[in-house]
């Protein structure tokens, strides 16, 4: 679905490239998580994948980015955005109207969705995000988290082939963050939507993503399944990416030869692995375990 070949980009106002020699291939229907330290070039990478680069930010563009067979340099931003739905980092500037319902309608109207379909789509997206009761509210009166949900819902309603979200849970509490990821995973599964999420909460990413991309100083350092990436917890720490603490613990144990199983992505897996080593019964507090696994995500 998305093919990036030898992509290097330098913003016009700087001399150093922000991303260097990126090669990345994302198949249709994949759930991809991108993470890395602040300023590593994650957002630039998303701009390249939703056509904002090269159409809105001028600079030196080398290599090629192809979305669903269309080269982003030769396709207009409007055409790219009919394939890729993007949720930007700055929610306030993404919102173009004053009322939640109008915000939902904006994209649907513009992309010429048949009018008889519109109401059902608005309702579905709002319900999926758990904000159906906010439909008639003035956006300025909403909290940061609610605005973020509105912004995500307004893109979900468009049902694009690719969903590109830049830190979609930055303003959300752990419960809502988990809910958003579950929803994204459902869209990937049910509609075959390709989901690309830039996110700091690595515990959530490793739980839901099929593929984890670690960006460091403008290059892709790791690009693999979450388990394979998390096996490098020491290297990740060096480049400013914190693994979930349960992963770090189990990796240490395995370095000391005390554990030989697969990499643990969350508390639940670590718990079960430890119980197996110690010869105990499976985890007794399933609910508790799930809650702490999201909390450790928030901390990590």
């Amino acid at each position, binding site marked *: 679905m998305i093919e990036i070949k030898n992509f290097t980009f330098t913003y016009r106002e700087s001399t150093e490239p922000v991303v260097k020699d990126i090669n990345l291939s994302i198949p249709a229907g994949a759930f991809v998580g991108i993470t890395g330290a602040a300023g590593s070039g994650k957002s630039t990478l998303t701009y390249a994948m*939703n*056509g*904002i680069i090269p159409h*809105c930010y001028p600079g030196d563009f080398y290599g090629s980015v192809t979305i669903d067979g269309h080269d982003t340099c030769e396709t*207009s*931003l*409007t055409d790219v*955005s*009919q394939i890729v739905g*993007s949720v*930007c980092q*700055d929610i*306030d*500037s*993404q*919102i*173009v*109207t*004053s*009322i939640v319902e*109008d915000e939902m*309608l*904006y*994209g*649907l*109207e*513009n*992309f*010429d969705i048949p*009018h008889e379909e*519109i109401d059902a789509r608005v309702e579905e997206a709002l319900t999926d995000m758990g904000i159906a009761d906010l439909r*008639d509210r*003035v956006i*300025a009166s909403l909290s940061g988290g609610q605005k973020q949900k509105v912004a995500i819902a*307004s893109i979900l309603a*468009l049902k694009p082939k690719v969903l590109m979200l830049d830190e979609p849970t930055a303003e959300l509490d752990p419960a809502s963050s988990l809910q958003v990821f579950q929803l994204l995973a459902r869209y990937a599964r049910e509609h075959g939507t390709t989901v690309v999420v830039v996110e700091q909460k690595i515990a959530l990413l490793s739980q839901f993503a099929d593929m984890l991309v670690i960006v460091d100083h403008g290059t892709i350092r790791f690009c693999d399944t979450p388990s394979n990436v998390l096996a490098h917890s020491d290297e990740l720490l060096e480049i400013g990416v914190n693994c979930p603490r349960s992963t770090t613990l189990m990796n240490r144990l395995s370095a000391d030869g005390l554990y030989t199983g697969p990499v643990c992505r969350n508390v639940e897996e670590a718990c079960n692995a430890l119980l197996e080593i110690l010869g105990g019964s499976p985890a007794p507090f399933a609910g508790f375990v799930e809650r702490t696994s999201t909390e450790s995500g928030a901390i990590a």
Partner: protein
Amino acid sequence: MNGFLEYVPGTSLLHRMNPVAKLLFAVLFAIMCFCTSNPIFLAAMFVFALALAASCGMMRQTLGLMKAVFVFSLILAILLIFTTPTGDRLVDLPWGYIGTGSIMAAITTILRLEAAAIPLFLTFYVTKMSDLSNSVVKVLHVPYKYAFTFASTVHFIPVFMNDMKGIMEAQTARGVEFDQGGIVNKIQLMVPLCVPLLVSSVRKTNSAAIAAEVRGFNLRTRESGYKQYPFAAHDIIALVLVIALMVAAILLH
């Protein structure tokens, strides 16, 4: 507390009216107020405008507006008192005199500005900005670009006011004394903050433009709007009424 030109939800007749009808009514009403100098007629129009405000529960906001318009029209009124020597001589001035006519002219001006401003102001408070811009595109065939520009401008006012408040609070926390002294002191302290505000607002408008474009701004046509804005009986009555008032105003001139 609602911000400047921010929609106040409600179900009154004014809320339910067609946005285009409301806008036309308010504009024609304002023009009508400038077509006549009959103080009694203007007083009646002023009362009528207040009745409109009361009918949609907007008295508090309207009183705020009236105060602002009053200050502005008072300046004009004082100028008129000293510069229109008509009617019975009341006070002698080196360049003429203040007469009963001057006082009447001053009162007329205040009434006229107050009466003209209220319906225009109400229109923005009882109509969602998006309804207003969508309906002028659909019904009046205004190019969407202009309607969107206007709607975005109004939409960004509270966002920028919030930014300004944030910057001021941050400065206050670091010891800048915004909470001390009078308005002059406050304004002096605010001037240097205009630069960061300007930078952040240019950045915000730029990303807003991108956000609108990735959601198909360029594809939008007059037919895109999902909501329809049909004229109901009360809309036609309102337009007939304002035209009748216009005729009356010209006849009573």
